[in-house]
């Protein structure tokens, strides 16, 4: 875009103004570029702008168009087809990601906890092709438990303790330090007796006699301790379980589980392209505009993946509705449909009794401006041909 002459751009803007065409900025650039490349004459440019204006205005939605209903139908119809082919899981090698109808429902419902959160982590220009760095980052992100670095594990019911032997090779392989592991253990098991043998990397833990275990240490206590110890996380980002390293054009990490905030703080990561499929996380970390884009992207990808093509504008409308008031709202009882201003519209959707009761208590007034209300009372709906009316001239 920089190579296009500012003069040309100004010229296009001028003609566009003359033709009363209101184009988005990118159109102006495109026209200017075409003018430059095709070496058009001024007259040709004028015709071009005129024609584009015509086509542009033709493609605009007319006022009174029922865009909401059309969007609902356009998303709903492919939705019925999705139920039929039941491949709702697919993904990167070993990574399972919810797809298809369940995923679409998840997006539209704006679920707080989604069934398969996953991240795609990109690296910045310096580290994009640095295999060593990528692998190191991966190991710091991935969840590692004590169980992953063990050589031997033994529950001794005679001594009522748990003995573990840490493998130095495995520790090194995972880019960890033995001392760090001990620190982690000591931090998490403050109420236990810990014996560490630095020589052969063995650690013995036993429950301490206290108020809770005054009747003596039960087998159950030792077993619980053993489970807790084995699952103790010694490295990795919270909520991220596994990391899969892939190389397509560049090195990319795919994760099972998601924690965008923590990952974005790390070094060498491309903060622009790194993303998650958890819409609520995007909302808390990046804000509402990003959320809107995430909804559009996720919904469109889900549909695309099933081989269904829905015009992006329908999905954009859905995303807009979900994010207009600055917070993510679901589509349904607790979101858009449940917060409509009209009592009759809400009562017609779900929880009829509740809405009528509350309306009667508060003395709500229904202005009868919506569609459903007017269908209920039997008036022409204020959309399409019903959106025009006659006004008498005031003399």
């Amino acid at each position, binding site marked *: 875009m920089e190579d296009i002459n500012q003069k040309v751009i100004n010229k296009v803007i001028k003609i566009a103004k003359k033709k009363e065409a209101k184009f988005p900025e990118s159109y102006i650039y495109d026209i200017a570029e075409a003018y430059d490349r095709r070496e058009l004459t001024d007259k040709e440019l004028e015709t071009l702008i005129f024609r584009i204006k015509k086509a542009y205005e033709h493609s605009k939605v007319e006022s009174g168009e029922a865009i909401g209903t059309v969007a609902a139908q356009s998303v709903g119809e492919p939705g019925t087809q999705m139920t039929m082919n039941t491949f709702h899981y697919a993904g990167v090698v070993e990574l399972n990601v919810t797809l298809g109808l369940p995923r679409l429902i998840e997006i539209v419902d704006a679920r707080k906890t989604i069934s398969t959160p996953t991240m795609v982590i990109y690296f910045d220009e310096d580290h994009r092709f640095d295999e060593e760095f990528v692998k190191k980052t991966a190991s710091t992100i991935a969840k590692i438990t004590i169980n992953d670095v063990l050589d031997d594990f033994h529950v001794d019911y005679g001594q009522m303790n748990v003995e573990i032997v840490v493998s130095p090779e495995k520790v090194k392989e995972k880019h960890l330090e033995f001392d760090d592991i001990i620190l982690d253990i000591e931090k998490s098991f403050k109420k236990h007796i810990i014996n560490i043998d630095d020589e052969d990397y063995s650690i013995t833990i036993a429950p301490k006699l206290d108020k809770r275990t005054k009747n003596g240490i039960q087998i159950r206590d030792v077993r619980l301790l053993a489970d807790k110890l084995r699952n103790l996380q010694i490295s990795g980002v919270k909520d991220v379980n596994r990391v899969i390293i892939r190389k397509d054009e560049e090195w990319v990490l795919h994760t099972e589980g998601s924690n965008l905030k923590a990952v974005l703080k790390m070094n060498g990561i491309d903060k622009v392209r790194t993303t998650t499929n958890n819409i609520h996380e995007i909302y808390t970390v990046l804000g509402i505009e990003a959320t809107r884009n995430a909804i559009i992207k996720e919904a469109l990808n889900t549909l695309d993946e099933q081989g269904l093509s829905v015009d992006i504008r329908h999905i954009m409308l859905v995303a807009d509705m979900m994010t207009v008031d600055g917070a993510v709202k679901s589509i349904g009882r607790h979101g858009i449909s449940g917060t409509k201003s009209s009592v009759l519209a809400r009562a017609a959707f779900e929880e009829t009794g509740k809405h009528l009761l509350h309306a*009667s208590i508060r003395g709500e007034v229904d202005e009868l401006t919506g569609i459903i209300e007017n*269908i209920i*009372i039997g008036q022409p*709906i*204020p959309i*399409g041909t019903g959106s025009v009316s006659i006004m008498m001239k005031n003399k």
Partner: protein
Amino acid sequence: MNGTKIYINGELIGKCENPEDFVSKMREKRRSGEVSEEMNITYYDKTSEIYVFNDPGRARRPLIIVKDGVPLLKDNHIQEIIEKKLKWDDLIGKGIVEYLDAEEEENSYIAMGLNDLNEDHTHLEIDPSTMLGICAGIIPFSNHNSSPRNTMEAGMTKQALGLYVSNYMHRTDTRAHLLHQPQTPMVKTRITNVTDYDERPSGQNFVIAVMSFEGYNMEDALILNKSSLERGLARSSFFRSYEIFERKYPGGQEDKFEIPGKGVRGYKSEKAYRYLDEDGIVNPESYVESGDVLIGKTSPPRFLEEIDEFGSANEKRRETSVTVRNGEKGIVDAVLLIETVEGSKLTKIRVRDTRQPEFGDKFASRHGQKGVVGLILSQEDVPFTENGVVPDLIVNPHAIPSRMSVGQVLEMVAGKAGCIKGERVDGTPFNQNIEEEIKMSLTDNGFESTGCESLYNGMVGERIEAEIFVGVAYYQKLHHMTTDKMYARSRGPVQVLTKQPTEGRAREGGLRFGEMERDCLIAHGAALALKERLLDESDKYEAIICGECGMLSVHDKIRNKIYCPICGEVDSFPVEISYAFKLLLDELKSLCVFPKLILEDKA
């Protein structure tokens, strides 16, 4: 871990140390008769569990037991069976044949035929086709069909008209269909021998040409030869029985069969009663149409009448006659006069209606190839073969390839060969080597072995360029008929509560303009078309609203005054709303909610 768990009918009852031994011992006991032959036992080594079942409701099937690669059923047994010395139960009792359920099949290795048999087999199939049930067993060459088609046919054959019972003339089924002149199928299966299908067949052998014809058999439509129909092909009768008795009421009153007098409340027209005999019941063989009374009946009044000016209670009886159902017609087939257990007069009336095939009636072959009649063509116009054979039915070739119902093609060739030879063909599935035989008998009689023939256009007599596949197949008339479904309404009855049109054909109801249809009109922005559908054509209502309080006003027709029950005679305005909305307002009021309509001038 320690021992295999044993479940009986899904309940854990114990463990055993040596499962293999235990299971085989149990099976021995079953075969020797020590344990009921209905017991089935299965051992799952992966989960180390033994399942024993002896409860009802399991599908089981018989198999010949095999020991060391040799079936226990020997030639001498077969000889004895032929001589009728040995019966089926004896075979089970001797431990030659046993029934397996789906569970125990998991533990067995079943040989399809004698040729496949080896040392490892535990059972031998009596015949491969015993795996099929009654419905699927009717399908000839079903092993050549794709499985969905067989499934569909198994479902459809239950809808076929036929000779459903042989004492139909003594029965009063509420509704019954009966096929005139049913035929036994030209191509039969051995399973139909067992089920006595030939005794109660449900179809007829049609001569079929597979070709397109003027586009009238697109999308599975069928073209029928009119003359064939006039000769009685696929003709059927429909019987409907009506039943009513003279009910006795507490207080000594009772219903009475009679021709209702003109004074009776709810008196229909004189015309409706014209077929009634003196006793108030129709005469047999009279032609009746919907609305005609079959049994004239009057009932005592529901409430005690007011005492009239002369001081006597004027009893006015109600008309409660039985009429012919809406949309039906027919000839009174039988009138039965009997008594109920209480001794009241009981009448059953059977009305018969002949159904000649017409446009839209549904037919199906035995291979899941269903279709509706798209054209009834005069015999003169139907293409004919060199020998002058005119097919009864023309089906579209597009119906075959994508559905892979090769069985139908085979049936048609086999049917044709059978017709020539004058004997029925065995089309039992998994029966090999029948193809050559069919081909032979066709070529021997001067036909193409493929079943194709030259056809001549019935209208102009030109030879049709392509060779047309002609054969004989068994077709079934299914009980979905146009007369039972055809319906339209412009005006008609409405519901009392909502003033909306009633629902359903039997109630002369409207065709529902549903939610999705509504959404479509919204999407098109057709606001006034939508209003017309949902209001003008449905439950339009002019409500009078009080301008003061916003509640419904009352129109006193006697004094011709409009007043509001709350505010008195203030300004009220007529507003066009749906009656359903008025009802909503009324119901809200009954819940002590006070909905008010705020009126404004129309913008």
